[in-house]
């Protein structure tokens, strides 16, 4: 059974994954996607097109 994760992002719009059901660390919010690890990572590969922190994107 693959453990469940959620897709999360911080104020710099840097994406990551976090175990579902665990308290989310401060400064991170849910992106609204939950699933297996690979499912979450595939989602991130689609939506996170610029890896730079938002503060330096021009």
């Amino acid at each position, binding site marked *: 059974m693959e453990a469940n994760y959620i*897709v999360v992002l911080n104020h710099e719009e840097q994406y990551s994954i976090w175990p579902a059901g665990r308290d989310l660390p*401060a400064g*991170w919010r849910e992106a609204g996607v939950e699933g297996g*690890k690979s499912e979450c*990572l595939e989602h991130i590969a689609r939506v*996170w097109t610029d*890896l730079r*922190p938002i503060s330096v994107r*021009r």
Partner: protein
Amino acid sequence: MSAPNERNVADIRRALLERKVRQRVAEKAEREKIVPVPRTGKMAIAEQQRFLWFLHQMVAGAPVYNVPFAMRLRGPLDVARLSEALRGIVARHESLRTRFGDEHGVPFQTVDPPPESWDLPVTDGSEESIQDWIDGQVREEFDLRNSPPYRFGLLRLGPEDHVLSIVWHHIVIDGWSSRQFAEELTARYADPEGADFPELTLQPADFAAWQRLWLLSDEPAKQIEYWHSAVDGMEPLEWRTDRQRPSAPTGAGRIYETRLPDDLARGIRDLAKAEGVSLLALTMAGYQVLLNRYTGQQDIALGSVLSGRTRSEIEPMMGFFANTVVVRGDLGGNPVFRDLVHAANDNILEAMAHQDVPFGRLVEELKPERLPGRNPLVAHLFTLLPEQMIARWRLPGVEVEMLTPQPETTRFDITFQINDLPDGGLGVWIEYSSELFDHERIERLVEHFTTVMGDALSRPDARVDSLDIMSDDEYLRVLTAWNPEPGERDERLLHELVAARAAEAPDAVAMRFAGEDLTYAQLDERSSRLAHALVEEFKVAPGRVVAVLLERGFDLPVAELGVLKAGGAWLPLDPQYPPERLAYQLGDADVAAVLTTSDLAGGVPADVARLLLDTDALDRWPASPPSVQVSQEDTAYVIYTSGSTGTPKGVMVPHRAVVNFCTTFQQMFSVTPDDRILQFSNPAFDVSVSDVFSTLTAGGTIVGAPRSELLDPEKLQGLLARERVTMVDIPPAVLGLLDPSALDDLRVCFIGMEPFGADLVNRWSKPGREFHNGYGPTEVTVTCVDYLCPPEPLDGPPPIGRAMANQRAYVLDKALRPVPVGVPGELYMAGAGLAIGYLGRPDQTAEKFLPDPFATTPGERMYATGDLVRWNSDGNLEFLGRADRQVKLRGLRVELGEIEHAIETFDGVRQCVVTVRDQGTSSAWLAAYVVGEFEQDALREHLSGLLPLHMVPTDYVRLDQLPLTSTGKVDHARLPDPRPDGGAGQVELSTETERRVAEIWQSLLSLDAGSIGAQDNFFVLGGNSLQVTQMISRVRDAFQVTLDPRRLFSYPLLSQFAAQIDDAQRALLGDDEVARLEAQIADLPEEELDRLLKESS
């Protein structure tokens, strides 16, 4: 009147039936009763004893199974009366008059007649001699074959002050019996005439005879059936020890005794009562949670000792009946603590119902993987000593104070025993292997147990996953106290720091190369011209990558600095890369241009723009830098690393991270403009970033040289001396080839990248020269963890230390929780050193850069290094290997890196890699590929002294160099098959001794005749520790020599072992005799030799 009659008939029938049943049951019980058997010279011993007897042989001489009691007796003591009381006990209990012999490896017992008279040995002593004397009493070996299995003695300190020592061998007595012994001693001493002890009609020898028959009945088969299913699929507990397990353990141990806090003890008793479970079940459940956290395993199998007194006839007997059982806890599925307790209770009850099968028999039946130096099935015990079994030593008129003898031995890795104390408290008594564990580790074990029990009592309905094992203090220590306080960070850009140095001292030398100088002014001017070219001609801007494909020389820092001034990120490429790899990286990074020279440009794909630095292309651009907007979060460089799987990925390191690294470096080493720092590292690796920019940002001088000069130890030595180099960051293997004596200017050795031993440090460290062990993945910018070796010599490999400035190191388990000190976990790094991520790979970035739950600033990330480390008790990190290099070998966890490390400590070995062959099968084996000059047998022997036997590779393949992938990692697919001809070529048996040993091994291991060769390994053939003893016994019969069983572990190959026998036989005759025989043979004519040989065969 028929009704009453009928009723009578029914009653009579019923009564008859009842009587029949009663008779049958009685007959059956009569048949199954333990009955006295005739005393003969050689009687059977109980299975428990047989097992212990084997173990006793294995530990040759160590007093591992001696059970001691010692007490101070103050007051008038009647020594004669005490002697007589002890003699009375020995006379009444045969077990204390039993000797053990063996025939063909099968032990038997002989009971001696009761002693007519006996005097307690009395020695005079003083207060200071007490501990030595009681320790001496317990540490002396018992000769079970020729002497009684007990030793009583009295130390006289004064007329009314004595110490009594009572020691016996565990083979004749157990915990239950010691309570009886103490009670009988009290009664006999108190009233020598009146003490009325009925003569015992049954003794342990009668039980042994009965047990033999019982073992042939149906009942044991049923119990064994139960155990088969109970241990099915059981994982051995793999608790990482503080020190490597020796291949031939001495059984050295320590005892640690303490008490649980009284309120916790009360809480435990209350909850056990409320839940209707045993104290053992409740405390064991807490211990299971603890071990689950320590090991990451969900299947926690522990041994536990039960009294074995399952028949009333055995109760009055003094003897060894206690038995070890296995109790498993299943923490899979994260159960509620209360449920775990009830499951433990059920399992313990089941174990009790099936405890009659002796543990040794169980081991023989279950045939678990046997490892020399390790207890079979369970090496870790959790047990409860019930109040009824705690011996009470009392002598009327004398005040008794218990003393603690230190046998300095242990039977298991760890025995964690809860003592159910009469005063309502709970004691903790731990016997542990001091070869494996440090004392602090055991103290922490009790601390963690106390914490987890406390938390579980306060919320028994919590899931076990959420229970705390660490105290708040320990959390603070590992998360905060052992990480540096956040400090000020320099907020400038990397090239701004260099520009400031150039402005301060324009004529200072920035770099030396091949006897020439490049000044800061020249560097600044040329890199500015390059920056203009990049901005104007190649549209470089922040976020764009520019490749640098150059040999070592002045162009390298110029190019890197020029890219930064243009706002871009440089990507260093190694001119030695194959063209495909170059093309891949250039395409993957979507480079704006390649900076290179005419001779190297041929390797660049035609469609990629290039700028040749060996032309006058830059001369037309201005000498002052272009104006571009760059942020500290913009990428400064991209360096490709290869993951364990898949294609290389480009790590994007921002200015913030590299500036933090360079400023930290300057502070750590107090770098000044007078420093001359070697540029050794391949420019395509990030250590070169340190060589170049730590120097330039501090105003120092880079000392460079062509690759060929750096890789030649003699030339490198000359360069370091000539250029008076003050700091080096080079691989340990290279440093090892240099001579420290002639390098007086060298004040810093910053060594890392791979683990190294104490020798290197001790050879190079000296007053005025710092030796650092640095650690860091590219993703955390060159080096993020550092250890400054102390001035005094090291006796083991140095740890990697602590996080450097503005960084944080966390050691976490799989659920991202901090692990306690000493427990292995994965290293996570957070703070100013973190890269932005992997270029063009958001998914892999998200997988390795996770939310940091421990950060004080919200929204920070932490990087999962994939490296296994642990905190030592001083708060330094120890590197243990890659988290993914752990393999299973016949169910046992094996760290391949550990084996490689051990091989690399052998003289002449330069490099090696170890792989598992036939992995996942029961015949899995290890192959070592070794680069260097070495003697295979000597290496094997060296390893068997360092590693447990199952970790010593079976096959060794010498290679000139390891096959590498294009990224520089070992290419496992191209390692040759160590056994190209399909199986191990069987080596012919060449001597008569070898042939006879082969016969013994064949019959013992049930192998076909002719299937064993001279190079076969006893353990690889399937031999286990019990069979070692049998083998030694058969060798004694065949060759009349007695070998220490442990010798087989050092010489496991048939040829080696046969040579040991030959040596032992010669030693028996003496040199003179052997020389005389040799002389006789030397004189014989050839025909005579032939004739004699034929005769003897």
